[in-house]
């Protein structure tokens, strides 16, 4: 009997949670038109704190940039806009209900992950390119398999947008991101370490070598260090691959979720 009651309560809770999901849906939908209208409203009301295009918040979170905010529901965003966030500098904006939902749609569009709207393509062929012609797995890990020197791609589809993934494959970066800057270190004992710089200061360096081993060095062991300005990540996949191959690779990468 007790067990039955527990089951009923659990089922009721699940049903309530389901209702909650329904309730959290933007009543205006998430079409490009709604998001575009939201963008104009956003630029009038939000940029001073959250930055242009929500990418560089000076006094408030960069809404488009911070992964930790991605799980916030439509309703949570709507409530923040209409009621403010107590204990923070976020005020209630005093906009109409529809305008508030338009801004919600815009913020959600900024945060749409590749996995939310994955591009079409032959996923199986994309995976084959990943492991073969594209040589991606030499440096990158998916689900614990692959090379260590590049970022883990296991959850790439959930934490990046299609646009950003395409850029990573086709546009050269002026600077490698922190933690991935390639270096060659010549030690005083005549040996050499090549890898990416995980951290450094005046006194010590932490390098992940191309041998996939960590090398913990003291500054006084080092004869000289050569830094590469270019990332190890190739940016010529639009010429290295046929257009259809790149599309398929993108289709595969966009669907990578944990």
């Amino acid at each position, binding site marked *: 009997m007790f067990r039955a009651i527990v089951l009923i309560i659990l089922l009721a809770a699940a049903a309530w949670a389901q209702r909650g999901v329904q309730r959290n849906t933007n009543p205006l939908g998430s079409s490009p038109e709604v998001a575009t209208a939201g963008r104009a409203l956003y630029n009038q009301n939000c940029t001073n704190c959250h930055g242009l295009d929500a990418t560089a918040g*000076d*006094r408030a979170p960069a809404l488009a940039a911070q992964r930790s905010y991605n799980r916030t529901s439509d309703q949570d965003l709507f409530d923040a806009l209409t009621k403010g966030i107590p204990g923070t500098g976020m005020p209630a904006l005093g906009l109409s209900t529809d305008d508030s939902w338009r801004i919600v749609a815009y913020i959600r569009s900024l945060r749409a992950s590749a996995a939310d709207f994955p591009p079409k393509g032959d996923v199986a062929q994309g995976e084959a390119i990943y492991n073969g012609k594209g040589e991606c797995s030499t440096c990158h890990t998916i689900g614990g398999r692959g090379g260590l020197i590049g970022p883990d791609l296991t959850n790439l589809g959930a934490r990046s947008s299609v646009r950003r993934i395409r850029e990573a494959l086709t546009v050269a970066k*002026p600077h490698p991101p922190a933690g991935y800057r390639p270096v060659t270190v010549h030690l005083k004992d005549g040996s050499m370490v090549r890898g990416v710089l995980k951290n450094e*200061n*005046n006194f010590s360096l932490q390098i992940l070598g191309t041998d996939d081993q960590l090398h913990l060095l003291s500054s006084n062991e080092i004869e000289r260090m050569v830094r590469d300005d270019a990332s190890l990540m190739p940016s010529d996949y639009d010429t290295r691959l046929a257009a259809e191959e790149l599309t398929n690779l993108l289709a595969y990468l966009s669907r990578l979720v944990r």
Partner: protein
Amino acid sequence: MLRITLLFLVAHVALAQVSNQDLLNPPPENWLTYGGSYDSQRHTKLDEITPGNVKNLQAAWIFPITSTNRLQTVPLVVDGVMYVSAPNEVYALDARSGREIWQYRRANGLNRGPNRGVAVFGNLVYVGTPDAYLVALDARTGTVAWETQIAKTSDGYFSPGAPFVADGKVIAGVGGGDNGLNGWLDAYDAETGKLIWRWYTIPRPGEPGNETWAGDSWKTGGGGTWLSGSYDPELGLIYWGLGNPAPDFDGDIRKGDNLYTESVVALDLKTGKLKWHFQFTPHDVHDWDSVEIPILVDAQFNGRMRKVMAHADRNGFYYVLDRETGEFLHGTPFIDQLNWATGLTPEGRPIRVPGVEPTLTGNFVCPSTSGATNWMSPAYNPVTGLFYLAAKEGCGVSFKGRQEFRPGGFDFKATGYIESPEEPWQMYVRALDLTTGERKWEYMQVNAKSYGAGLISTASGLIFGGDDQGTFAALDARTGAPLWHFETNYRISASPISYAVNGHQYVAVAAGVNIIAFRLPDTN
């Protein structure tokens, strides 16, 4: 006998008082003011820790304050008791061990701004609060002796700076300039908390300087007083650096020089009357507050002794002024990447490069809004004659927009800036010749791209400082060579101090969430 000794020690602490004499001539074992002394040189006479033995320096204790992850408090030490603060909190610690003696928590306090430290005088400890009160606590118990409202909380003001005590007066200021809230400096009776005088940083109609604001723009002109100051007892003048004009990035609605924003002012301590001012960046549009602590030195300048003031400004220039008159004596950039001015006029006014103002689409400016230096204190060593500071090289892109002022403490910056992604950012400790500003050495803080700690100088020839990587290091004051370091692994945003208990010298700094004190081992 042991019991008698203990009683004596307890009695000694209980009777500890900070007198005017102490503040005028601080005993080396105590660190009694934000800048360590009224001249803010941050130069300790303690010399137990030397370039020769600093390699043995080790952490003596750690005291965590977990309510903020970026402590900016400068600890004060009075006869073996350390006072540290965070927003809405003050702690008294045994400076030998970090063991807590008391704590004060302000109930229901707002979360506005950081807290940069306390002041001490008599038996009281003074702290500014996020709801813009000045609170006096009993130094022995932490109980509230009095509190007084500096500004109306609902107006949006807060008081993040360390109060400053001189001649029985507590000087306190306000933050809120970026919200278009005009600043002022107050002097309160140290015993009672009664207001003695108030000086407004933005002149009101009829006052000299009001004409430097177009129309009614003076009403929301900013000019915060959010750090601390210096004092010359012989001249009876206090010196305070003032914050930026508002709206920060849109100068169109506030044409004119916008006095006294981004000036250093000399006020008569007795009356609060303005003796002189010097404006570093007239009509600024980059949020380059001039709050950086002015260092007072009596030094030879062009063949005669002068009472000078040295100030390294967020705008990238180093200035030497005569602090009796405010006369500009010398100025030169202390950073290499500076594109907004070609130099300074004989009067010290910047020679502007046209077209470096923020625009709707963004404009490239060096230094960026974060500036070439900021609240982290510089230091001066009278033996080397060098002025030491944390300097930041790098550029940014500044945008402007239109924004309406909203009362109550809301952002009134009229948009903002990004640090240029194309430019490598780099922090340095630099040593400048006091009178010429010539760079004598620099120490690059590898991998440090944003602001870290301020500095102290020691009589034995050391400079202590830290960086955003959490590295706390000792440098040779003559060469900049690193002689010791400790990895706190938490961004350091405060300025260190030095003190002594039972004849042992300590160096202490707030690093992230921790107060950490260092000393030599007993066997040293």
